[in-house]
């Protein structure tokens, strides 16, 4: 499962080697685990539940304390995982990975490095997938900022007053998480080649 992996996954091949079908399937499974299973189905759903309960003045619900203590702080580790996922996407999608395979592999090391940089720069400036990746990184940064504004809520004692006063921040964090989810969904599956 994606959740069990840490940043710097060693299974990703070197940036200049061709991706295998297994690499692509692994990345897709990781994305499904992070985006579908955790971010959308659990985390956003949990944030929505929290906001709704606070909104309707039901600050005593035991689920609130449970969510704040156990689930809200999961953002920290999951944000790292998201960065790894995005790096992995770049590694699998950028034309840099083609350089290490024949016939380009026959070039000398300096030429390979030069060509890889040029190809990647071109990809970053022109390819839609690259722009989608940038959007995802921006969304991640905004969500990180949003989390910093609500992180204090995860520390007991849990107060209904504090939650009510943090409602705007919670909503803002929730929105940036949703934007991140949409950006992750919009990343096209990397292709072999």
């Amino acid at each position: 499962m994606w959740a069990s992996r840490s940043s710097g996954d060693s299974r990703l091949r070197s940036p200049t080697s061709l991706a295998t079908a297994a690499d692509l399937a692994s990345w897709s499974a990781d994305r499904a685990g992070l985006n579908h299973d955790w971010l959308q189905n659990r985390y956003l759903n949990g944030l929505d539940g929290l906001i709704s309960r606070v909104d309707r003045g039901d600050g005593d619900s035991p689920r609130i304390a449970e969510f704040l203590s156990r689930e809200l702080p999961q953002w920290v580790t999951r944000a790292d995982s998201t960065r790894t996922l995005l790096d992995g996407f770049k590694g699998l999608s950028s034309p840099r990975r083609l350089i290490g395979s024949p016939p380009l592999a026959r070039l000398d090391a300096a030429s390979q490095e030069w060509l890889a940089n040029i190809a990647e720069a071109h990809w970053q400036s022109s390819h839609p997938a690259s722009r989608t990746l940038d959007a995802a990184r921006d969304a991640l940064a905004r969500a990180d900022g949003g989390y910093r504004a609500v992180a204090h809520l995860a520390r007991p004692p849990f107060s209904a007053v504090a939650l009510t006063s943090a409602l705007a921040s919670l909503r803002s964090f929730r929105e940036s998480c949703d934007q991140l989810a949409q950006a992750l969904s919009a990343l096209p599956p990397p292709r072999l080649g």
Partner: protein
Amino acid sequence: MTLPRILVVDDELGACRDRRNSMREDFCAKLAIADVTGDVAAESIRDPLCEGVFCSAQEEQGGVVENNKQQAIALIRRAWATHPRWALVLLDLYFKTGNVTDEGTPAGRPEDLKPESYFGLTLLRELRSDPGLGDLPVTILSSKERSEIEKLFADLDACDFVRKGELTRDALQQQLFYHGLLEDERILGHSVSLLKCLREARRRAVQGNGNVLVLGESGTGKEMLAQYIHEKSGRRGPFVKLFTQGTPESLIEDQLFGHEKGAFTDARSAREGAAEQADGGTLFIDEFGNVPGGIQAKLLRLLDKNTRESQRIGSQEARQLDLVVVMATNRLDIGTAADFRADLLARANVGNPVLLPSVRDRPEDLPLLIEHLVRRAEVEQGADRREIGQEALARLLAYHWPHNVRELDLVLGDAVRKRPRIRHLAANHLRLPGALDAAVVPAPAPEPPPPGSPARVGPDLLVPGSLGLVLLALERADPGADWETYEGRLGDVQVAYVRFFARWLKVALETTRTRTPGKRAGRILITTAMKHLTGDPNLKAPQAADLIKRVLRLRPDVAKELLADPVLAEAYEKALQMRPQTRAHARGD
């Protein structure tokens, strides 16, 4: 009022582990769903939007989770056939299967992730292959990318696709509004045919300033449906009714468009018509099928959604209005009516009417309607509460109700009124029309009349068996009916009818009054007025006089009150002058 009940088919929301599902708790909290599944402890929801039943469509055996299509289909089918039926199904796409991990959830298999093999679509395909479930409204609810399966779920007739992150309370309310099969507390019933009609009415209500044609047999509740459309349209303006049945053409035009001061002899001041009154709201034209040819041409501009123009009689200016026009008729074949302008029918949206089902078309609603109408009659008449006997119910269910809910209401109201202190509604309390009595309770064959005896001309039809038949006779506005036979039995109806007749008579007299320059007050024409009232152009003066006398004197207790009106008094005097022989009796002196 029963809350709508939705079914959520989702592997995670439907799961039940250790009598707790925190994900479902959050889902219900955010959408205001009262969880009635009963498999896990549910949080209490204040002011819930709907009830929710959750189903995982999966089962775990030996540490491996597999999808279980039949379990889900059986649950859906079971509740679809009962009440409350599913108002809406929210169906997930991606169901994870395989070995259960340390987290307690299945690890997932590669095929679970493939759009073409999403279990949610497999389930939907199975549902759509069952003719009994064809009307089940299903909305896809998923965190997956919709573009991958856009065509697949459209082909399978899903109502919509909603991303989980976008499903808020308001969004769920919208889903229910547009796609849900929702009951209404006034238009009673939970049959699919009625709920589909209400759904179509809601959709049409919010289509902007459109025209809606409601088709339904008499007594089905077309006016109530028109009010429902008005309420659901969210328009702040009024709901204005215009009845065309039996109204002379000139009066319809005046009532619909109004007039300017001096537009005609009696127009002492300007008056706005029903269309202007309905500006910002809804204009309801009842008995649209009876709109005369002359008015049809004038309606064209009002029914043009782009202009919505209304012009008062005597005015050169057209006013632009913002309103919804709802038209109702029991002429189910109006689309091919030769007496209607094709362009008017097109603007009336005749090709896409809202069809209000008859009681015959929704027999499963009868017990609910019967219960409601009996209770209402008991309250209105201060009668005892009664059990509805099985035989009575069977008799009511066997009848074909040609006049629909109105007739049912009249029959049940009559049964309660006649026996206010009886606490059991028996089959013999029900005065159903003769044809049914004969059909349901076989009667011995009548003996032939002795030779030479006077022929009996349908005595059961002349003496009404129920309030329903009387009211139906009233609807036909038949002043020549044998009212004497009702004397003492249906007093309230008589009073109502006499007042009704008097009001219409006055309108007819005023609109047909002739005026000359030398005599500004003009004079009333009782024969002409009665021709309009009865719709009989061949009515003779003595007949007209007799009718006026006969109806106005039917209830002496009301006659004095009515004859205090100078116009009616003048008409009555004229009738007496023409046919003087019963003057003393009529006055009730």
